[in-house]
């Protein structure tokens, strides 16, 4: 609040200065005014005293009369007081007009009441006595601030010189000068001196046919003096003020010293008679007035300035206060609007301040109504937690600041809070505890949920992964199957194309073969008829021809198996019977040193297919087995039922198949036998037949040890 204090001090300073100036101004004005007035009144009294005492003896009577008339005049105070006084005075004076030259009445303030009189010659008194003059004088008084008049009177001039003393005053009664016709001015001066009137004067004699001296008595040397001159060049700015018959009052400015002057011009016995009365140059009174005005002006300016200044500071202070207030309001709204709990505690752990949120929570969880100064902890339901809070606060009071999460049990579920403790410092000292609490229940719950979801997700992922693995396995299996199928397809393709070929070829070769064979035979026949003895000669040629043709025909016949479409695979074939038949067929081919071992399954094995073809298939296998055994050996035939399928294994102890040939055994025309012995189609056909029957055939062989062929149908 430093600047606020400063403002107050400043304000006080200005106020006191202002008041001082005001008092000073008022005091000065009053003092000056008072003094001036005082002087004026004093002088007036003295002059009247001078006049009255001088003529006391001789004219006591007049004096008394005049005084009584004068005192009577004061009785007139009503609205028309001036007029009434005038009328009264005129009437009273008429009675004495014969004896007096001139006289008038003025009150103690110098105010002329009335004026009448005779001059030392006839014209002056008449002039003065005229109604016009009376009125005029009054007028003069008004216009020119001249106060003319005093009690005076004339006496017969032959006896002695009756000075005519006409004090000239302004309308405030201030004596400006005295107009007199006394000759002996020295004695007049002495008179005035005896009454304490110290008069500085300058005496000038005037030119006149009049044997009198007119003296004017200035009141002080600075302001009053007189000029007696006839020449009009001494003054300028001549301005006629008033004309009283012969007398003209005028104002002008002295060329000599620039003083404003008041002049009286009259024509006495044909001569221009100028009386110059210098006006005090802007008297103290006027000076006073201007000074007063200046001071007043200064006063006004200063007060306005002060007022503005005070206003300004006041405004600034207001602004500052408004700012403070706004800040305070903002803070308060912040304090209240937040959903976080805010609480301030003093060093005794009593509540200093709390926000709305705190109050709500306290109400809802513990049914507590918070108030300032409360010992919150003592009102808590859970004493354990209350003790914890107390402990926390004492830690903070030692200057520690920390954060802590807390589980707060309520009637329903637990709430979770995050407490932030901070000490409140005043200088170096800890004076309180500030507690800021965040409700993190929702957060904690979200956390829990998140963990659950995470768990679930992992489970789902594991499950999915497992499923994918299984799928993978399936896919791998399928891939393998596809590969096998592909190979089989290729094989079938080979066979199929071969089959297509053979279908066409069959016919195209058989006919020419027919030509060759039967042509040769017919020819030989004809030759034999012609040369009957040469029959044996022709035989070898015929044999060779027949052999060749038969070989060719056989090959074609074998191949033409494949021109047959799927077809007749609907016979029910007994495997054991077929095998036995084959053995029978082979029987005479089997060399006696080959042993046959039959190891048939107990169950009969029946498959659907073509009996003929199956015969051929097994026949080929058995033929090969037999042919692979050079001298001695065993052929084992084992049959069994596995998974609903017939499995036939034919094993020999022959020469075996070298590894390099294993992949080729089913190739058409592949044979290891010398030409003419085998066509190389045996296994090719077998494989095709088994394939046709949707079976499987496996060959396992070891060179010099033997071969085992397993057929699954």
């Amino acid at each position, binding site marked *: 609040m430093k600047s606020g204090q400063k403002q107050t001090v400043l304000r006080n300073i200005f106020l006191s200065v202002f008041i001082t100036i005001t008092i000073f101004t008022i005091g000065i004005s009053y003092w000056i005014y008072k003094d001036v007035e005082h002087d004026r009144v004093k002088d007036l009294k003295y002059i009247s005293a001078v006049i009255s005492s001088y003529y006391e003896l001789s004219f006591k009577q007049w004096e008394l009369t005049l005084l009584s008339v004068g005192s009577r005049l004061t009785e007139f105070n009503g609205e028309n007081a001036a007029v009434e006084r005038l009328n009264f005075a005129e009437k009273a004076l008429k009675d004495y007009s014969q004896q007096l030259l001139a006289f008038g009445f003025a009150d103690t303030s110098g105010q002329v009441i009335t004026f009448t009189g005779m001059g030392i010659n006839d014209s002056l008194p008449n002039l003065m006595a005229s109604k016009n003059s009376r009125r005029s004088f009054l007028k003069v008084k008004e216009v020119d601030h001249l106060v003319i008049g005093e009690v005076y009177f004339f006496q017969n001039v032959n006896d002695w010189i009756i000075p005519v003393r006409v004090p000239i005053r302004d309308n405030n009664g201030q004596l400006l000068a005295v107009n007199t016709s006394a000759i002996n001015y020295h004695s007049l001066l002495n008179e005035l001196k005896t009454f304490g009137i110290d008069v500085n004067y300058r005496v000038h004699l005037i030119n006149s046919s009049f044997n009198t001296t007119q003296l004017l008595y200035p009141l002080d040397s600075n302001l009053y003096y007189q000029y007696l001159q006839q020449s009009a060049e001494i003054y300028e700015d001549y301005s006629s003020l008033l004309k009283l018959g012969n007398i003209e009052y005028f104002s002008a400015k002295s060329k000599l010293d620039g003083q404003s002057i008041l002049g009286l011009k009259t024509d006495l016995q044909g001569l221009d008679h100028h009386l110059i009365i210098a006006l005090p140059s802007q008297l103290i009174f006027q000076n006073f007035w201007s000074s007063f005005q200046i001071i007043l002006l200064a006063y006004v300016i200063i007060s306005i300035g002060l007022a503005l200044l005070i206003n300004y500071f006041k405004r600034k202070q207001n602004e500052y206060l408004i700012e403070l207030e706004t800040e305070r309001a903002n803070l308060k709204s912040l304090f209240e609007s937040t959903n976080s709990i805010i609480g301030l505690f003093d060093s005794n752990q009593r509540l200093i301040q709390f926000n709305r949120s705190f109050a709500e929570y306290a109400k809802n969880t513990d049914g507590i109504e918070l108030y300032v100064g409360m010992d919150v902890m003592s009102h808590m339901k859970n004493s354990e937690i209350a003790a914890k809070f107390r402990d926390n606060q004492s830690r903070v009071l030692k200057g520690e600041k920390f954060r802590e999460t807390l589980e707060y049990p309520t009637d329903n579920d637990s709430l979770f809070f995050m407490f932030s403790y901070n000490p409140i410092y005043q200088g170096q000292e800890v004076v309180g505890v500030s507690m800021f609490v965040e409700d993190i229940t929702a957060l904690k719950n979200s956390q829990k949920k998140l963990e659950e979801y995470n768990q679930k997700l992992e489970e789902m992922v594991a499950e999915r992964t497992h499923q994918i693995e299984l799928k993978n396995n399936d896919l791998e299996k399928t891939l393998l199957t596809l590969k096998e199928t592909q190979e089989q397809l290729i094989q079938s393709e080979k066979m199929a194309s071969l089959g297509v070929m053979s279908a066409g070829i069959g016919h195209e070769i058989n006919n020419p073969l027919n030509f060759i064979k039967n042509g040769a035979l017919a020819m030989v026949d004809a030759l034999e008829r012609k040369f009957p003895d040469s029959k044996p000669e022709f035989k070898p040629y015929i044999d060779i021809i027949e052999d060749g043709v038969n070989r060719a025909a056989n090959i074609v*016949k074998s191949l033409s198996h494949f021109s047959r479409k799927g077809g007749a695979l609907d016979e029910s074939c007994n495997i054991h019977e077929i095998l036995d038949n084959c053995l029978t067929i082979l029987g005479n081919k089997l060399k006696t040193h080959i042993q046959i071992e039959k190891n048939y399954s107990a169950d009969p094995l029946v498959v659907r297919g073509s009996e003929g073809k199956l015969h051929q298939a097994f026949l080929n296998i058995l033929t090969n087995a037999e042919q692979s055994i050079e001298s001695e050996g065993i052929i084992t035939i084992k049959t069994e039922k596995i998974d609903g399928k017939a499995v036939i294994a034919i094993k020999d102890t022959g020469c075996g198949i070298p590894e390099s040939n294993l992949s080729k055994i089913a190739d058409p025309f592949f044979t290891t036998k010398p030409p003419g012995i085998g066509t190389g189609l045996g296994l090719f056909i077998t494989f095709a037949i088994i394939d046709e029957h949707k079976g499987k055939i496996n060959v396992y062989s070891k060179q010099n040890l033997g071969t085992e062929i397993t057929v699954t149908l």
Partner: protein
Amino acid sequence: MADKRAITVLYVDDEEANLFLFKVTFQNKYKVITANSATVGLAELQNHHNEIIVVISDMNMPQMNGIEFIKRAKHEYQNIVYYILTGFDYNDQIDSALKSNLIQKFFTKPFNASEIEAAIEQAAKSSS
């Protein structure tokens, strides 16, 4: 026993060479009538159906194949025995023809003279 020369065989084949060969092979034993198309064969049948005992036909002939021919022939002349001699091997057509008894037998080329001879003798026996 009937005179071998009294057995008449009709052989139908679109290949002249085959017709020639057949003739020279069997003409010493039987009377051979050849026809180079099914149409000709039918004509010959019309003329000689009383004496023809066996009809042997090729399978693969333009315009009308062997089976068709035999069907038509058999429809007219049921007493004759019909065989097929073909360059093809056993196939469905032949199989069904055999099963339906349209033909008694079939032979493949190059033909075996003795096999055919035996079949003709059998046919002659059954007809007489």
